């Protein structure tokens, strides 16, 4: 119960941070770190995947409501949540996961978390950019922007993990 409350607080905090702070950080054109996806990433390894999808949809949809882009973030986040189990299996340690494993910096180390976060965020951003444009035109420019955005998001997530979820 305590765990659920903690996750709920994390969820609310991340959503608020995203809506109130990071959505306004679009300093370099449309590039902004999407911190809120971190919530999906830090859920326990054994978290029910179907529920994960629902949570992803809700978190994305809230962001959509705030910036008036209905469906775009929801779609991207659901896509990421869909890929998460596969990515986890792909990155699983030699001995496999323990039932209470949480994929965060404290348990898995920087290199692993960097890989895990980068792959998931990349999937999210690719979907996001595609949903924004619904076209594959101008791929080169979009790809560069996407790369910068992925870098920014991963950086923000890991820094947040380092400082906030340390407890």
């Amino acid at each position, binding site marked *: 119960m305590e765990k659920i409350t903690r996750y709920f607080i994390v969820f609310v905090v991340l959503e608020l941070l995203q809506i109130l702070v990071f959505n306004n950080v679009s300093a370099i054109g449309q590039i902004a770190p999407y911190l809120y996806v971190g919530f999906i990433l830090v859920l326990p390894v054994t978290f029910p995947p179907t529920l994960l*999808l629902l949570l992803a949809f809700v978190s994305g949809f809230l962001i959509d409501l705030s910036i008036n882009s*209905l469906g*775009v973030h*929801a779609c991207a986040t659901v896509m990421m949540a*869909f890929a998460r*189990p596969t990515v986890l299996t792909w990155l699983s340690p030699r001995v496999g996961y323990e039932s209470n494993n949480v994929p965060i910096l404290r348990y898995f180390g920087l290199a692993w978390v960097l890989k895990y976060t980068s792959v998931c965020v990349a999937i999210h951003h690719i979907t996001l950019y595609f*949903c924004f444009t*619904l076209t594959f035109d101008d791929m080169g420019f979009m790809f560069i922007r996407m790369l910068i955005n992925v870098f920014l998001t991963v950086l923000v997530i890991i820094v947040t993990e380092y400082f906030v979820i340390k407890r």
Partner: protein
Amino acid sequence: MEKLFDFINKHSFLLMFLLLQIVSFIFIVNFNEPQKSRFGAVSTAFQGRIYSVTQKITRYFNLVEANERLVEENRRLYENQIFSQYDHTIRSKVVTDEVLDQQYEYITAVVLNNSTNKVKNYITINKGRKHGIQKNMSVICPSGIVGVVVRSSENFSLIMTVLNPQFKVSTKFKDSGFYGSLMWHGGDYETATLEEIPLHAIINVGDTLVTNSYSNMFPSGIMVGTVESFYQKDNFFSADVLLSTDFKRLDYVYVVKDLFKKERENLESGI
């Protein structure tokens, strides 16, 4: 029902994913202007493709019907063509002469059917009893003899051509006057055989052969052909004759009406 629940339970992750993605997509294309117009353009293009493909397919299935329509239309067009109309005018060319009495009249006719490569060859013409054509009338064309009428109906006649083993006509050498019987023994449609030429006849290759009136069929002097080669057979000479009529190219023919035929037949049958 249980199976359905089983299925949903088993694939809940995938089904949930698909459901949520579909919901998101519906949101995206309905509530975002740029995506909406973009999706509109893509879906219009897609619809266009689908329509063109289905149109291609249905067009294929409609081919039979279209074909039938075209055939019907062709039939109608053919019927309106001039060659489909039956010519009811009777053009009987009469050569009037003050001094001589008219013996032969000519009825022009168009060849409707023609054969040259059978054992017995016949042609069909577009004139019949109605136009005065009767059995045993001879038929000629501008380049030579054609044959003899064997049967005629109201509007059509059947002509046994030279290229028929039953056809036999008395033929003479134009210059020397010796005569024989022209026959055809099958094979080549360009050559016939002149038989029963007396042994004392003087024959040269290239001699011109014309009809004579002995067989009471053709008018005298109608071109038959030229001698190609000759040889002795029993007590007669035989000659291969290159026919002057090109039976492969018959289109218009003249049916010869002999006005004195009856009289001569009556006279000759009395012997």
